[in-house]
């Protein structure tokens, strides 16, 4: 078991903050721009991953293991969410023969 020195002896936490935020924003941009429902769900996973990254960074920074445990649980939730989301997608496809999000506007009001 190799034990590396804490990375935060050299770089500061700001770097990881910015990196994570950029990844998050890229995810948001993807959600807003893409019309394919599957890509939409993937971008959501990307957003969740960026949050994971930040959590682990902070856990390393503070030496607290709860951060990584939380990442664990986020992964659990992400997995469940992806599963259910995809099954809903399949159902939608069956009824409408398309996964274009722009077509699903029955709640227009």
């Amino acid at each position, binding site marked *: 078991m190799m034990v590396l020195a804490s990375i935060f002896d050299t770089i500061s936490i700001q770097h990881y903050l910015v990196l994570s935020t950029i990844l998050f924003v890229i995810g948001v941009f993807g959600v807003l721009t893409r*019309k394919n429902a599957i890509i939409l769900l993937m971008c959501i996973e990307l957003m969740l991953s960026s949050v994971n990254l930040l959590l682990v960074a902070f856990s390393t920074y503070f030496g607290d293991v709860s951060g990584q445990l939380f990442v664990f649980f986020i992964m659990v939730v992400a997995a469940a969410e992806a599963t259910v989301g995809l099954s809903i997608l399949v159902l939608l496809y069956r009824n409408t023969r398309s996964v274009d*999000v722009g077509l699903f*506007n029955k*709640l*227009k009001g």
Partner: protein
Amino acid sequence: MSIEQLIPLIIAIPLIGGFINGVFGKKLPKVIVGSIATFAVFTSFFLALSVFFKLEESVTVDLFTILNLENIQLNARFLVDNLSIWMTMIITGVGALIHLFSMGYMSHDKGYYKFFTYLNLFIFAMLILVLGSNYFMLFFGWEGVGICSYLLIGFHYSDVEKGLLNGLAARKAFIMNRIGDLGLLIGLFMLLANFGTLEYTELADKILTQGISYSEGALFIITLCLFIGATGKSAQIPLFTWLPDAMAGPTPVSALIHAATMVTAGIFLVVRSNFLFELAPSTQDIMLYVGLLTSLVTAFIAMRQNDIKKVLAYSTVSQLGFIFVALGMGAYTAAIFHVTTHAFFKALLFLGSGSVIHAMSDEQDIRKMGGLKKYIPITNITFLIGTLAISGFPLLSGFFSKDEILAHAMHHNTIIYILLAFSALLTAIYMFRLYFVVFHGSFRGSDEAKSHLHESPLNMTLPLIVLAVLSVIGGLLNIPSLLGGHHWFTHLLNENVAGLSRVAELHITDGETLMLMISASVLTLIALFFSYNVYVKKNNVPVNDHEIKGWTKLSANKLYFDEVYNSLFVKPIEWKSTKLYSLVEVVILNGIISSLTKLLSGLSELVKKWQSGKTDSYILWMVFGIVGLVIYYLVKI
């Protein structure tokens, strides 16, 4: 039971009767409904009678305090003195007889139970008016009788041919009363402002005993305003035109409200405030002249009226004018005496006319009547007695009461006496005209009406008989010393009514009384023979409408009073209100409200565009929202 317990009972029993009839009356049989109402009023009468016999000093019965502020206290309190209990007895006594009459008269009417409810409510309101111990209770009863009068005049509002007229007559009565009420209210407010109290006893105390200082001008205006209120309710010039129109209501209503009770409310008000009026001689003069003018004018109009009830209506106004003349001279007890006898014979005459109308199958034009004495004998005799009484036939009740007023007039001013005597003469002439045209001669109506002629049932003729007896013996109340009496009634009122004992008494010698009596009797007999001559001997019959000429035209058209009022007051107000309606209501108010609604719906259209149903736009706005939130927290911290 003590007086304190009886008085609330006297007032409450008609209210309860009205309530029972109002709520359950629709399902009860007609006999029960009428009996409950009549019985309630009879009970009140007997209770009032027992109170009358027990009463010595004036009694105050306190119920509860309505308002208790620093400057004003308003109490629900009753004052029982001889005046109020006497009025109570008249109201309940004559009222009970009229209730009995209505049981027969209104027996074919659909709204039977409603009628009796309103009648009982009216009695309730009128009792509060006379028994109240302060002006506030009086006003409460005043308004109450106004409403009941409105309801009862317009009772047949859904009648096919006359429904609209009935409604309009009711409205006219109410509005004219309202004008008078405004005067009354101003008077009350000024009373409160100047003296700080509305209680009769406290006011009498302050003015008579304590000698509180007051301004002459204020007192003049107060009494003038009170008189205006009385003018409205008691139908004097200029607010009298509602009374003839009010004859559109059923006859018992005319008898009760517009002959015996409600129209006497104004007179009661003045008598109650006698100490105020005694200190405002200018108002007394105004009262006198207005009353005199009213009496003469309406007597003139009555000379050529052809509806049996309208003649009686104008005669009521004329008699009330008479009484106001008496009040203007400070003859308060004489006024109440005449009110009493007037209640008897006027109610008798109205009920008699009701009996005639009933026999004539609802025909009211006297030109279509005639020779009825063969067919309806009891009505004939009682009507004759009533006519004799109102004309002042010697020794009947009207003779004594008119004579007292004439005596006061002669001492006051000879010209007024002459004019008043002339008015009495006219009264006798047109009343006998009425009697002879209706009951003598030959029948002028249709054959179909002739076949229906029948005497009224007992519950209608019995009140007639009782009232006829009262009209005959009513004079016994206040017999002058000439004939061996000692003015019992005057002493009765002077005993415990505040202020009356201080009014200067009339000192009249026996010789003068005799002369007055003889001259009055002579006038009456002249009138009797004149009418007899014209209408029986020469068989003169009132002409049809299109044949009227000359001075009779003025009389028949009621001196064009209604038309003048219409063009002076009614039409401009109607014009103004239409203009205001089309401007304010339609343009401004509607415009504001509709523009408000358009604004709102426009806004909602705008907001609706946000809900596009597309996920990406939702997420976009969510992101913007988050950005906004974070900025907000950044900036705040």
